[in-house]
């Protein structure tokens, strides 16, 4: 029952010595207490959510503050002669704000865009689904004729607008392996704290210089805080832009690449597999960086990039493989130079040490005059001579046990060889550089057991075969070391960042353990390789131009097919300006293909033009020859 009144006569009198009217008046305090309790409850709750709990303030800011990131203009990339090779070009999207569309002449717009009406309707529906009040792209990456057609008539189509943004474009068809590419950031990278400043959809350098110099190229992003209402419509700057920052354009990269030399190198390597690396030994600057097969850098930019990337990735020739940095091969005979230098430094041989061309130790590829000094040995690439050089260097008699002696000797040899930057990353300004491998005694212990091996086990090292791997870049660097007579600068692509110079680590000389005079002992031999009668690298001679080339051929035995051909050289011998290493897979004897190719590169670089075009034709023929063989 709604109103069960208390009967005053029976109950109340016993408890309350007051009249019923007075008792009921007392209930006003109950009512007032209810009011006050609710008020206090509210005051406390409000104090909690307004003053104590800060999360609501953050939530309000999240609601109404929109952070607009202004992506700065990405830095440009130039070659060593100031030629622009990578730039930004605007890409245009047709944007639409569905709510602002008025009296749309769909047919006419579709005619201008040369687009089926049905397709247009679908795109418009998608845009409406996204938002009726916010701009969204209706058609992305308009072609130039499409842009021209629509731009002048845009005034007739309220609600439609053109948005420009920047994409990478290339003024070169070469150097893709060094340049790398720019693409949208992946969800995985977004999670890493290193990329905290990026948001989904941002572009960044994925590989190559674009990736290594990402921070430099990207510049500083600008941030603007805008107030937005519940529908996401802008309502002006937050606190008059007090917290906004302006974007700062990225710095340009001035690379050491000689575009013409690069282009020439890629042309020479067309239809072949392998690499060419050319360095300026005086600075460590990379002049050319050829990886074959190659691809055009523009293939990894703009519309359809994803599909083209997959095509390259699935290509059996593996054009994405960065051979100069990532392919490690046994260096072959070129490595005899290093072994000789190590032995000279150890003092176990002299330039005039004579060893017989003893075919019982190791086969020599051809018959030749007796190697009575190191010059002849290098010129003829005499295998038994360098076998004996290495044995002298390894077997020092430091232990009566010949096996222990080999271990001690190899450890000492390795320490010396490593000082050439081998078996470790050189530190070039590209990612994913392979270390290569210089075998240690522990490696052979693992293979054969401790004291389970002796010099006869490892003798292939003496001719650059066996358990040894070096990259094309390291090979070129060996030439730079010999050209400099004992030191090198870390090979690098970028000689200038913005208005400044290269990174400081690229101005530092790295000395080998070899004293300068020992280089003087081998350089004449290297010159004789090219110019001496019967030298293995005679095809590389530029004597007709008065340029003396010092080089060394190599023919690398290969378990998987025909030998690889190498040739490493520097020139001019008396004042080296270029150090080069050519590596052609499965091309046979180093002297026939790699040597002429290296000499053409040197001719191109030093003389800016090539007159010995007959060698280009020769190389083409050579190419067809080995391609058929393969």
């Amino acid at each position, binding site marked *: *029952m*709604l*109103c*069960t*009144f*208390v*009967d*005053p006569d029976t109950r109340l009198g016993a408890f309350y010595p007051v009249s*019923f009217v007075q008792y*009921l*008046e007392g*209930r*006003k305090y*109950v*009512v*007032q207490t*209810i*009011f*006050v309790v*609710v*008020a206090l*409850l*509210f*005051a406390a*709750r*409000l*104090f909690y*959510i*307004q*003053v104590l*709990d800060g*999360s*609501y*303030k953050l*939530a*309000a*800011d999240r*609601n*109404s*503050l929109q952070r607009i990131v202004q992506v700065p203009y990405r830095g440009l990339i130039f070659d060593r002669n100031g030629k622009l090779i990578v730039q930004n070009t605007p890409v245009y999207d047709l944007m639409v704000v569905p709510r602002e569309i008025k009296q749309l002449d769909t047919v006419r717009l579709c005619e201008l865009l040369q687009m089926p009406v049905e397709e247009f309707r679908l795109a418009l529906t998608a845009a409406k689904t996204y938002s009726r009040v916010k701009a969204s792209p209706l058609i992305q990456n308009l072609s130039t004729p499409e842009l021209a057609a629509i731009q002048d008539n845009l005034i007739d189509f309220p609600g439609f607008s053109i948005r420009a943004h920047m994409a990478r474009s290339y003024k070169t068809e070469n150097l893709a392996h060094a340049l790398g590419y720019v693409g949208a950031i992946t969800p995985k990278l977004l999670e890493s704290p290193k990329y905290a400043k990026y948001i989904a959809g941002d572009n960044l350098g994925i590989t190559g210089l674009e990736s290594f110099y990402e921070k430099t190229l990207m510049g500083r992003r600008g941030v603007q805080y805008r*107030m*937005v*209402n*519940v*529908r996401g419509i802008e*309502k*002006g700057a937050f606190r008059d832009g007090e917290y906004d920052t302006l974007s700062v354009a990225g710095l340009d990269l001035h690379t050491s690449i000689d575009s013409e030399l690069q282009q020439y190198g890629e042309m020479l390597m067309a239809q072949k597999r392998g690499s060419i690396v050319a360095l300026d030994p005086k600075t460590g600057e990379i002049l050319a960086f050829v990886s074959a097969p190659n691809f055009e850098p523009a293939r990894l930019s703009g519309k359809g990039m994803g599909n083209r990337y997959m095509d390259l990735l699935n290509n059996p020739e593996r054009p994405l493989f960065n051979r100069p940095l990532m392919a490690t091969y046994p260096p072959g005979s070129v490595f005899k130079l290093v072994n000789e230098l190590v032995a000279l430094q150890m003092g176990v041989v002299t330039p005039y040490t004579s060893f017989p061309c003893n075919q019982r130790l190791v086969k020599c590829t051809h018959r030749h005059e007796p190697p009575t000094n190191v010059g002849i040995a290098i010129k003829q690439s005499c295998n038994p001579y360098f076998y004996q050089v290495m044995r002298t260097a390894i077997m020092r008699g430091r232990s009566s046990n010949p096996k222990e002696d080999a271990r001690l000797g190899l450890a000492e040899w390795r320490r010396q060889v490593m000082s050439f930057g081998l078996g470790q990353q050189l530190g070039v300004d590209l990612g994913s550089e392979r270390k290569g491998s210089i075998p240690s005694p522990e490696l052979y212990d693992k293979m054969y057991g401790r004291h389970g091996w002796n010099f006869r086990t490892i003798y292939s090292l003496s001719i650059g075969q066996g358990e040894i791997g070096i990259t094309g870049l390291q090979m070129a660097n060996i030439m730079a070391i010999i050209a400099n007579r004992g030191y090198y600068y870390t090979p690098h692509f970028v000689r200038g960042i913005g208005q400044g110079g290269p990174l400081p680590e690229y101005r530092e000389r790295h000395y080998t353990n070899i004293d300068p005079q020992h280089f003087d002992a081998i350089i004449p031999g290297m010159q004789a390789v090219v110019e001496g009668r019967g030298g293995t690298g005679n095809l590389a001679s530029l004597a007709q131009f008065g340029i003396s080339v010092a080089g060394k051929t190599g023919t690398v035995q290969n378990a998987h097919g025909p030998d690889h051909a190498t040739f490493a050289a520097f020139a001019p011998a008396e004042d080296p300006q270029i150090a080069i290493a050519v590596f052609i897979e499965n091309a046979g004897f180093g002297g026939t293909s790699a040597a002429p190719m290296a000499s053409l590169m040197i001719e191109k670089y030093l003389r800016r033009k090539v007159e010995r075009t007959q060698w280009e034709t020769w190389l083409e023929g050579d190419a067809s020859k080995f391609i058929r063989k393969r």
Partner: protein
Amino acid sequence: MSSSPARYSRSLDWVTIGIYALMVGLGWLNVYAASYSPDAPLGFAGQSFQELMANNWFKQIIWIGTAVVLMVILVVVDYKAYDTFAYVFYAVVVLLLLVTLFIARPIAGSRSWLELGPVRLQPAEFAKFATALAVSRFMAGINLRHQNWRDQAVLAGMTLLPPLLIIASNETGQALVFGAFLLAYFREGMSPLILIVLAAAGVILILALLIPKLWLIGGITLILGGVFLVNSRVMRHHLPLALSVWAVVVGMVFGVDFFFNQVLQPHQRKRIEVLINPSADPLGVGWNVTQSKIAIGSGGLMGKGFLEGTQTKFDFVPEQSTDFIFCTVGEEWGWMGSIVVIILFMALLMRLVYVAERQKSVFGRTYGYCVASIFFFHFAVNVGMTIGLAPVVGIPLPLFSYGGSSLWSFTILLFIMLAIDAYRKQDLVR
């Protein structure tokens, strides 16, 4: 009008009028802030009447103006008329509610608005004062000392008829307001048991949502059993009573469950669920509650400043100038502003209790308590829902929320009380 205007004016309760004026004034400021948009600076200059009429803050000026006229009429009319014509007002309002039910166009799902040309009125708002007058009149005529089942049934019927019609028009929030009459009846002698049972039902409803039903029953049994055992020396004489209390509570658990799942409509159920878990309906009612709490919670101690509330000016809180006006107070004036509003309401309520208690007639006193209770119910539920302590019930914050019907309704409620109070000395005990 036997006395001079000056004497009459002196006998008016100016304290209440002062609080009323303050609340309406502050209310308008907040309606202005809620309808303010940074794009279109406010002001009268260069705008036509039609353009101005598109703004809630401008229309509220008109509503306030008419309310002033209304209050003058209300205090000038002979106070006896309210007593005499109480039943007539009641009959008219019931008729209006019935008519509305049949001719009203549905607006946002409710058929509760009468349209008279450009003006829209909600008869439910006026049912409050008419019912308050009628039940007070009836209360004055019955003898409290003698229980009379027939009188009580009539009183219950009078109280329930308007809210039932209002529920039929799908305006449940306004109907719940009539529950406030229980406070006034309590003051006039109603058993406190009814209030206690209702409060218990509310607590059980919330507990039933938080805890599985069987656990709840088990828990209640344990607690009651514990109380019984601890006081067993006294209690053992009242075992049947204790058992029936237990049975009633368990019955309530099932009743509440039935009420929640079978009686309540899905959207009403949602509103209660959201109270416990705002993410239950993040884009529906939960959105209102979440955004409202963000608005108030982001105000801090001193608030963001007048017209500086981002939640307010960027429309994050729906129904900002009407039911959720307290968000604007909380966001732009902070905790200090909220406390000022709470203190104003407390002052008004305490003053109303004081004024009611000084009435010599049961009619005047009952009416005074009715007015206080209705104001309190609106205040408690409205502020409670904006800070997530009460379910979202669409009722305005008295004198603050935008809206003509609501402002008029509360003005009428209050100024009839003032008119009755002004003549209390002439009205000998009836």
